[in-house]
């Protein structure tokens, strides 16, 4: 009992001590709202391990942080995100993909057999992250699906290059964007259907796929099977699930899901790849495109206890839009000093990059562990939230307070 009291006293002092050196904003960083926490729980969808249920309908479930213990996120642990009520299960034999639009020379239809047989298969590992991942941590909170850290995953995707399929249709010179419609549909006729577009130059990028396999298995229903679009480096809003129609169009796609949805204030998150056909001089926002540099500590939790003099291993992963993670720094003193973590093997520039860092806490008390990734462009994570009304692009450096006794 005496030991415990001594411990509490010391840890209290350590917290005060940390407060002297850390910006107060960081110490008051918001977690999930109380209503979010109360309504969320671990529940298993068909074919899935228990995930954190955020909403039953549309079906929105996120991956618990401690499931991210390897570079690939297994299919049964992969987050689930849909926008609309109706998510039909489509048998592969019944699935057809229509390629057309006013800027296609030769519209045609594809079966799965043809997609696999007529176009070279490509495999790549890429992070699929919801634009609103970590929205629930926004301070102040903003309306939407209140995601924590797990609206993302890293998988090996196999499919045909979109550009090969578009080439067969013949794209006219006046094409500006390629639009994508999935089988997901609204409950009401008047609800805007979830349709998205990519600028033509991005749609014909070598890495953009019509994927039909995920981690060596047929693409699961809940993750967009029979086939979905994969846009490595860009947020998952462009990774249309259950793709059934692709159109080449001469005018920028309009509609709720292009504007005002999925947008950030112009200039707030400078990126190498902008979607300029969706920009207007008199509109203050631009479509979200590339993921920002980010990292996640996966093996320790706030409040976890460790013993003084015993090594602590901190593990996690880092990712960006495909420029390549080249540095992860870890602080164990609330951000005063930083040391380089050891980067694990590179699985490709669009993949999670695992890292780890060992340290031996000698002093009892609270130690605030932080991790900060940087990429080859020199971009890094932010210490303070860059607030935007939809809660996008949250890459605030985590602060995990561990207790050493």
């Amino acid at each position, binding site marked *: 009992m005496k030991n415990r009291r001594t411990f509490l006293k010391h840890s209290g002092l350590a917290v005060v001590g940390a407060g002297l050196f850390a910006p107060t904003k960081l110490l008051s960083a918001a977690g999930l709202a109380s209503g979010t926490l109360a309504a*969320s729980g671990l529940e298993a969808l068909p074919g899935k391990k228990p995930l954190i249920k955020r909403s039953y309908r549309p079906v929105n479930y996120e991956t618990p942080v401690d499931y991210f213990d390897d570079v690939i996120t297994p299919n049964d642990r992969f987050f689930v995100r849909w926008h609309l009520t109706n998510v039909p299960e489509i048998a592969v034999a019944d699935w057809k993909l229509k390629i057309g639009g006013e800027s296609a020379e030769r519209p045609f239809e594809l079966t799965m057999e043809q997609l696999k047989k007529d176009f070279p298969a490509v495999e790549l590992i890429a992070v699929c992250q919801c634009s609103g991942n970590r929205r629930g941590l926004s301070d102040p909170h903003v309306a939407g699906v209140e995601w924590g850290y797990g609206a993302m995953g890293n998988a090996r995707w196999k499919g045909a290059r979109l550009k090969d399929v578009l080439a067969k249709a013949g794209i006219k010179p006046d094409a500006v964007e390629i639009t994508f419609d999935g089988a997901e549909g609204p409950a009401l006729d008047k609800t805007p259907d979830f349709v998205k577009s990519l600028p033509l130059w991005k749609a014909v990028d070598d890495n953009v796929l019509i994927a039909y396999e995920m981690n060596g298995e047929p693409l699961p229903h809940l993750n967009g099977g029979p086939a979905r679009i994969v846009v490595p480096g860009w947020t998952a809003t462009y990774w249309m699930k259950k793709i059934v129609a692709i159109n080449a169009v001469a005018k920028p796609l309009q509609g709720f899901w292009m504007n005002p949805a999925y947008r950030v204030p112009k200039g707030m998150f400078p990126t190498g790849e902008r979607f300029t056909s969706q920009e207007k001089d008199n509109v203050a926002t631009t479509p979200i495109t590339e993921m920002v540099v980010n990292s996640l500590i996966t093996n320790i939790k706030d409040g976890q206890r460790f013993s003084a003099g015993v090594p602590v291993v901190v593990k996690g992963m880092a990712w960006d839009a495909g420029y390549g993670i080249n540095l992860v720094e870890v602080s164990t003193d609330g951000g005063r000093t930083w040391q380089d973590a050891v980067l694990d093997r590179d699985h490709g520039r669009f993949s999670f990059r695992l890292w780890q860092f060992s340290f031996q806490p000698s002093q009892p008390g609270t130690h605030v562990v932080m991790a900060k990734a940087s990429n080859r462009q020199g971009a890094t994570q932010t210490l303070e939230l860059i607030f935007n009304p939809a809660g996008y692009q949250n890459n605030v450096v985590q602060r995990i307070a561990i207790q050493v006794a």
Partner: protein
Amino acid sequence: MRTLAISSILGLVAFSSLAFASEDQIELKQGPGREAVMANCVMCHSLDMIQINSPFLKRGQWEATVNKMRKVMGAPISDDDTAKIVAYLSKYYGID
């Protein structure tokens, strides 16, 4: 994809049967306006969308949200029900 094909309706039922069972367990707080919420909002989403978005929206933000559901998402909510829903959400799931 907008479709009223039988296959898609069957798909919806098959897909959602498990989710719906749990969805029925959601209990919103008792209070005036709860009936209007239950009658209108479940057409398009489960009621946990309300719970997870609480308590941090001000009355004006709940009002904007309900208006978005009407004007953007096309929910056929009457003016009368809108007033009841906004009052209920801001009182039981809001912050002022």
